[in-house]
């Protein structure tokens, strides 16, 4: 009984209290769980209702949007047709494009209203989430032109190569036997495989890209890095050697994987030093040829065994170019100073392109040592295993421009010192040749596989080229004066012979004593006199012709003159008041001798001009030729001017001023600089149109008042007056 008594005592009280607490806690828990459950049910119901209403709202909104888009398309489409009927092609295309956009929006909205939202309503929305946008993106990303659709005459395309950053399409191709034979006869030895780099508006390239590449092509062609180039309609392509191998970034990454996290082991370091020396050797050849690469980075360096090759000539620029410096290049491998200078608008020849290339080489060496790009420029830390002397070389190559290596050979000497050391880590910066250390013998850099240079020295600078051209022109004038003198002499001799013959006949007839014969002889004598005078006049005209123009008429032209009355000069009064006889229509190439040659340059490329504007330009060219006696180089007539590489001068002038408004100061200066070095044309007639397809702006650009058109006795001002009259 005692335990029972104990339970009924204080223990019972404790047990009751504990039981009450437990019961209370249990109750609270149950109530809490119940409330939570109710909350969950309410929340879920709320979410469900929101979801259902959201989907219904989505369907309604999309349906309304689809209807709105359809209405807009129905309004825009007739507007496109109306503009088409009026011949306003650009406006018609605009409205048609807008109608197309509206129809696309309608299809998208209809899809979302009919499929997207209903599927979301039943919980399957994620399966098709944003499918319409993704599909559109996929379609847009699809290659537009397949390799098989492209045709490069003389080459069979094997495959498409990864696209570079210059907007070009790259193809690996095999030249046909016939084409190889043909080029071999011209001294070009094509290898079995080549790379064709193609640009075109239809291939997705932009005009600035094409222009830039065209300029680079000129420099690359001078270096012999391009086998041939072809322009066809709205695209052009050129053919380069195919360089097999891996890009340096991949090769270096493999070296680091093999060496471990600490950095390059001795063998890998030795390979890196060898690659650096090869790179510097090849780059030295670029600089010696007067060009800089401008885009040196690991992905533009191909490693083939022990050799490295520099590819991608898209930004190659002549060191002495008069063009404005651009910021093109690759971030982290491009000297930030280049960007600063480019933003100041300096010209290429005002900066030292060699040093910008050397900065890039320093960045490439850094990337080889660190297996990463120099994210902080020259302040980037070198954390992996690297000889101190090599760190110094990297720092010096990436230092401020005035303190950087001056040439590839100076940098090469330092790298060679490290590479040739028994222990590269024992070489101190103070031991390097650039720091006063003993020099070492420089390695022989193999020439292959770059084609041998066709030039032994750098290309002439613009002023040297202009001087040579002036000397050539002078020689040509001298030869023409001599030829004219010979012709005059021949004419005099011929007239003398005719007179002599007439006199002889006259004497013979006189001896025969017949009166009618006297009359006949008299007539013959008069005719001979006229013939003599005519020959003399002809000789005088020929002499004046030579002294008035740069290029005198050829002997053939003189023997059978065209029905063209040559003006005494291109003075505005004589030209305006007494219209000249028209030059005869010429089907084949015309000889520009005696005629100023002017290039017709519209503000925008031919492809962006409509039919009206092209026709107007054709009229302008015809008027200039018929009224002024000027030969016009343009894309708007089929006439060839002899001795003028029309394609080259058109491309050159386009590169200087295209897409800029007539009168823009910098373009004008560039055109003048272009004319200074071009002996083929005397001036550029720069023309711009307004929205109504009328010629709204024009300007004649000539090199200066003492050359070019002035030597034809036409000043810029008088020409401008004539031109204004004509264009009005």
């Amino acid at each position, binding site marked *: 009984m005692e335990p029972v008594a104990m339970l009924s005592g204080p223990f019972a009280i404790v047990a009751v209290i504990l039981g009450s607490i437990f019961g209370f806690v249990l109750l609270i828990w149950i109530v809490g769980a119940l409330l939570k459950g109710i909350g969950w049910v309410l929340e879920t119901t709320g979410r469900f209702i929101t979801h259902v209403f959201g989907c219904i709202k*989505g369907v309604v*909104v999309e349906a309304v949007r689809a209807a709105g888009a359809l209405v807009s398309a129905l309004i825009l489409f007739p507007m496109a047709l109306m503009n088409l009927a009026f011949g306003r092609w650009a406006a018609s295309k605009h409205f048609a494009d807008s109608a197309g956009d509206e129809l696309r929006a309608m299809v998208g*909205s209809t899809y*979302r209203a009919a499929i997207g939202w209903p599927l979301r309503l039943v919980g399957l929305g994620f399966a098709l989430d944003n499918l319409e946008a993704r599909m559109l993106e996929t379609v847009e990303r699809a290659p537009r032109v397949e390799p098989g659709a492209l045709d490069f005459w003389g080459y069979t395309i094997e495959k498409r190569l990864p696209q570079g950053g210059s907007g070009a399409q790259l193809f690996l191709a095999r030249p046909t036997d016939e084409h190889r034979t043909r080029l071999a006869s011209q001294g070009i030895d094509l290898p079995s495989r080549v790379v064709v780099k193609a640009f075109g508006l239809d291939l997705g390239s932009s005009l600035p890209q094409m222009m830039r590449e065209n300029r680079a092509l000129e420099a690359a062609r001078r270096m012999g890095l391009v086998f041939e180039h072809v322009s066809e309609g709205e695209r052009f392509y050129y053919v380069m050697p195919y360089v097999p191998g891996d890009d340096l970034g991949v090769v270096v990454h493999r070296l680091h994987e093999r060496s471990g996290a600490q950095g390059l082991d001795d063998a890998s370091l030795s390979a890196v030093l060898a690659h650096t020396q090869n790179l510097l050797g090849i780059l030295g050849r670029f600089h010696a040829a007067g060009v800089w690469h401008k885009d040196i980075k690991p992905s533009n360096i191909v490693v083939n065994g022990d050799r490295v090759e520099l590819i991608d000539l898209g930004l190659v620029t002549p060191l002495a170019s008069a063009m404005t410096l651009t910021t093109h290049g690759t971030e982290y491998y491009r000297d930030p100073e280049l960007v600063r200078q480019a*933003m100041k608008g300096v010209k290429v020849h005002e900066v030292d392109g060699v040093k910008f290339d050397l900065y890039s080489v320093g960045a490439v060496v850094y990337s080889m040592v660190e297996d990463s790009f120099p994210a902080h420029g*020259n*302040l980037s830390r070198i954390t992996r295993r690297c000889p101190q002397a090599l760190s110094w070389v990297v720092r010096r190559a990436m230092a*401020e421009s005035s*303190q950087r290596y001056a040439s590839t050979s100076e940098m090469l000497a330092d790298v060679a010192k490290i590479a040739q050391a028994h222990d590269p880590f024992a070489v101190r910066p103070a031991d390097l040749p650039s720091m006063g250390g003993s020099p070492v013998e420089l390695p022989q850099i193999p020439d292959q596989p770059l084609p041998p240079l066709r030039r032994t020295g750098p290309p002439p600078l613009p002023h040297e080229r202009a001087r040579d051209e002036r000397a050539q022109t002078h020689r040509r004038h001298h030869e023409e004066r001599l030829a004219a003198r010979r012709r005059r002499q021949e004419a005099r001799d011929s007239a003398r012979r005719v007179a002599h013959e007439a006199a002889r006949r006259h004497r013979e007839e006189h001896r025969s004593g017949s009166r009618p014969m006297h009359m006949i002889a008299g007539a013959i004598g008069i005719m001979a006199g006229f013939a003599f005078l005519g020959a003399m006049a002809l000789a005088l005209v020929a002499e004046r012709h030579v002294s008035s123009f740069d290029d005198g008429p050829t002997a053939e032209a003189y023997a059978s003159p065209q029905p063209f009355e040559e003006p005494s000069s291109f003075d505005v009064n004589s030209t305006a008041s007494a219209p000249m006889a028209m030059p005869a229509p010429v089907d084949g190439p015309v000889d520009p001798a005696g005629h100023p040659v002017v290039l017709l340059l519209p503000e925008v490329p031919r492809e962006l001009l409509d039919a009206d504007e092209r026709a107007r330009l054709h009229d302008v060219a015809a008027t200039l030729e018929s009224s002024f006696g000027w030969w016009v180089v343009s894309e708007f007539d089929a006439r060839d001017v002899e001795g003028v590489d029309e394609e080259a001068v058109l491309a050159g002038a386009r590169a200087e001023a295209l897409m800029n408004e007539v009168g823009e100061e910098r373009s004008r200066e560039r055109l003048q600089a272009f004319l200074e070095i071009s002996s083929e044309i005397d001036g550029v007639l720069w023309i711009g149109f307004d929205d109504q397809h009328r010629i709204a702006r024009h300007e004649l650009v000539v090199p200066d008042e003492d050359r070019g058109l002035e030597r034809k006795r036409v000043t810029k001002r008088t020409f401008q007056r004539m031109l204004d009259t004509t264009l009005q």
Partner: protein
Amino acid sequence: MPQDLSTGFIQRLRTRDPQAWYELWEIFGPILRAQFARWGKGRIGAETVKDLSQETMAALASAIDTHDPSRGVRFSTWLLAIAKYTLTDEFDRRMAIKRGEGKKPVTLDESFDRPGEEQPPDERYEALVVGAKVEAALRSVEREAEHMDFEVYRMRVLEGVAGKDVAASLGLSEAGVSRRLGKVRDLVRGHLGVVMARFSFTDEELEEVGRKGLDPNPNKASDALFDEAVSEVYHRYAEFRAEIDRAGA
């Protein structure tokens, strides 16, 4: 003193001076990229990060004409707010495409130009900003100083090489190393003061330099501390960015 806005850097930005914009981009472009990469937590691609940082600069260009720094917003906070606006704008746009709705985000001015309502930037972002400013100062010193002088400074201060080793490596005397080091240190102090003033809207931002041990006032006794502080900020900044670059890769 924070910069004079009528003649200072902000004025150059307002007049669309390309050099000033490039300088701003060079210093703060990496910070913006780093910040976007952090916010994205690996879900924003590298190209999108680049685009967003450029769009932030574009938004900054439109905001700078009307912004009034006297409201007391720090430059770094202001920049962060614009970056955040750009990011949310991008997300709004993407979500709008997904939803098929044309939801308009708040305007730029509504979004960032409200002092006190913006969450203060975290310590890491502030460290990035200070690091970028120190790096900008070092970069301008590197351009101005003799190459040998700066290399001495780099080896001695930034790489922590002992004075006598620097002297042996570069073929200099120890006294020569000290002299060149002092010369560059003075330049660093000067340029740091200029950079800090250029990108500070408030006195508090300027005082931050001192708090980080980067006191620009010359003091012989604090030379070692100053060098140590520069080195620490430089390495920390490089580590942060390397970490973010790795995460982005």
